[in-house]
């Protein structure tokens, strides 16, 4: 299959997003493809002097407003070059780039950049300024009032999860993770509609990285910025991206779509290889239990006769039965223990130890299934009412 040079995504923004209630305007967009483009690249080429082939070759891409688009690809494929052409740290050789409907080259560089947050892997905090002054960089450039800046700095510290006590320190006194939080706060300071992030979490250890990623996801739920995130880590792209653009060497766009789309149907061998093994597991991390039709399971009421339980077990082909009182789940009873009981409720019961909720990913549900004696995941709603059961078969169906 040839690489798609423009937008993909025939089904619009569904899939991973459907479970999260706070999805921005994109969820209501009737048209296919991304929401209204906030950033548009048309046939953008960058040929560095003395290079034998262009670093980015006629790349076209539309980044939807309020979406996080992840640019992912192997090292040297032109991700950073693409990102830097958006804020004109690098000037394209040819092609056009629009941000918010305005061509970037029609604005003075510094004015363009003050409307675009920029976060880089090496962070690049100003070592001679306190954390607060670092965060205040763009507001100062824009000439905000002192009091406004102070209030904004405190607000941002809270948003990015930074202890206020750190505001008066110099960056050298902060850990890597804290520094990157400052980097994000600084980029967001003047509330720019667009945020560019170049491998922001590559330099921190995996535990801190996971935290920072979760924080970014949470922040994005509140702020709905248009974010372009460059990463070489496909898992990060899947975890954070509303859409992911897979780039090959020379900035060739191999596939562009939601993580669910890309995982379900990789456009070609490059994409398949880049997504790596465990593609099924990665997809399962994007689907929630709520999206899967549940099985009823071998369930009977506690006051039912043992015969009813026998029938339920036979129907499901198992040797245990779940015991309900109304929609409250009491536990499960072994088929062998039912013989002497007058009612199912009289037989010895074992409580279910683990449950999943509608918002749980089916990947986690699978973990529950393989770890349970009964080989099912019990689904309860948020008020602990019984909703149904999942088996491996249900999950396999959901992936088809």
């Amino acid at each position, binding site marked *: 299959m040839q690489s798609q040079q423009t937008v993909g995504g025939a089904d619009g923004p569904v899939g991973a997003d459907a479970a999260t209630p706070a999805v921005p305007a994109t969820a209501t967009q009737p048209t296919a493809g991304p929401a209204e483009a906030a950033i548009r690249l048309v046939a953008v080429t960058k040929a560095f002097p003395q290079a034998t082939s262009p670093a980015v070759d006629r790349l076209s891409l539309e980044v939807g407003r309020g979406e996080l688009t992840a640019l992912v690809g192997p090292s040297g494929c032109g991700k950073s070059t693409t990102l830097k052409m958006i804020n004109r740290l690098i000037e394209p050789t040819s092609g056009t780039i629009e941000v918010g409907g305005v061509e970037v080259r029609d604005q003075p560089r510094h*004015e*363009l*950049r003050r409307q675009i947050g920029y976060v880089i892997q090496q962070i*690049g905090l100003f070592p001679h300024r306190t954390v607060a002054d670092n965060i205040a960089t763009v507001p100062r450039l824009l000439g905000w009032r002192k009091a406004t800046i102070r209030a904004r700095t405190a607000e941002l510290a809270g948003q990015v999860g930074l202890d206020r006590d750190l505001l008066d320190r110099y960056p*050298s*006194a902060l850990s890597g993770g804290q520094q990157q939080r400052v980097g994000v706060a600084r980029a967001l300071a003047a509330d720019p509609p667009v945020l560019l992030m170049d491998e922001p979490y590559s330099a921190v250890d995996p535990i801190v990285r996971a935290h920072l990623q979760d924080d970014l996801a949470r922040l994005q739920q509140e702020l709905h910025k248009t974010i372009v995130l460059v990463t070489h880590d496909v898992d990060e792209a899947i975890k954070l991206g509303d859409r992911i653009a897979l780039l090959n060497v020379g900035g060739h766009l191999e596939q562009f779509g939601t993580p669910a789309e890309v995982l379900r149907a990789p456009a070609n061998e490059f994409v398949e290889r880049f997504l790596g093994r465990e593609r099924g597991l990665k997809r399962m991390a994007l689907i929630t239990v709520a999206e899967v039709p549940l099985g009823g399971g071998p369930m009977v009421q506690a006051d039912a006769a043992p015969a009813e339980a026998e029938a339920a077990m036979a129907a499901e082909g198992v040797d245990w039965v779940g015991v309900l009182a109304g929609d409250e789940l009491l536990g499960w009873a072994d088929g062998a223990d039912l013989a002497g009981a007058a009612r199912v409720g009289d037989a010895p019961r074992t409580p279910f130890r683990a449950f999943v909720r509608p918002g749980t990913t089916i990947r986690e549900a699978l973990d529950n299934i393989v770890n349970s004696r009964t080989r099912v995941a019990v689904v309860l709603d948020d008020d602990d009412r019984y909703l149904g059961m999942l088996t491996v078969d249900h999950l396999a169906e959901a992936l088809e």
Partner: protein
Amino acid sequence: MTPAVPGVLLAENGPDSFIWWAWVGDHLDEIWERTVQHVQLTVIALVVGFAVSTVLALIALRFRRTYTPITGFAGVLYAIPSLALFAFLVPITGLSLLTAEIGLVSYTLLILVRNMVAGIDGVPAAVREAADGMGYTPWRRFVAVDARLATPTIVAGVRIAAVTTVGLVTVTALIGQGGYGALINDGLSRSFNTPIVVGAALSILLAMAVDLLLVGAERLLTPWARAGRR
């Protein structure tokens, strides 16, 4: 000259002693005058040298190809023996303050230009990239970021230049510009120890005082450096 024996300094203090305190007491006004001259010559040389070096460093930074010729030229100036330089200048500019300062300024250029350029080059690329990405204009970034971060390296250069200049100013007495060198010359011409010792000792003390002052200035200018070393 009689070699000095510190043990007898105060015992029989007189004109032949290593230092004759009575002479010092009688000449406090002259010593003060020489001190003022010495400080003036030093400060003028440093201020002018810093200004000239700033211009040269800016040119070298803006047009990288000029760095080698500029530092090469400053290096040649630095290598000329001071007496030879003054001997060369006197026929042109006379026994004047100008002659003295041309010489003194020449000797500051190499160290100042080199440290200015090294200081700016030492600014981390990521900091520059972030500053550009935030929307600094080039000149504003240079002043607010690059130059600030180069301060420790530049001050290090100024300290060396200052100490060197304080010592060199003693030579400018030869062309009649006063300073501690005048005391030393006076003593040499009369084979009289005391002014030589006073002039040399005060010159050393002044160099140390100036150095301390600059260390203090650096601490004030770079509060982040101390915080970072915790």
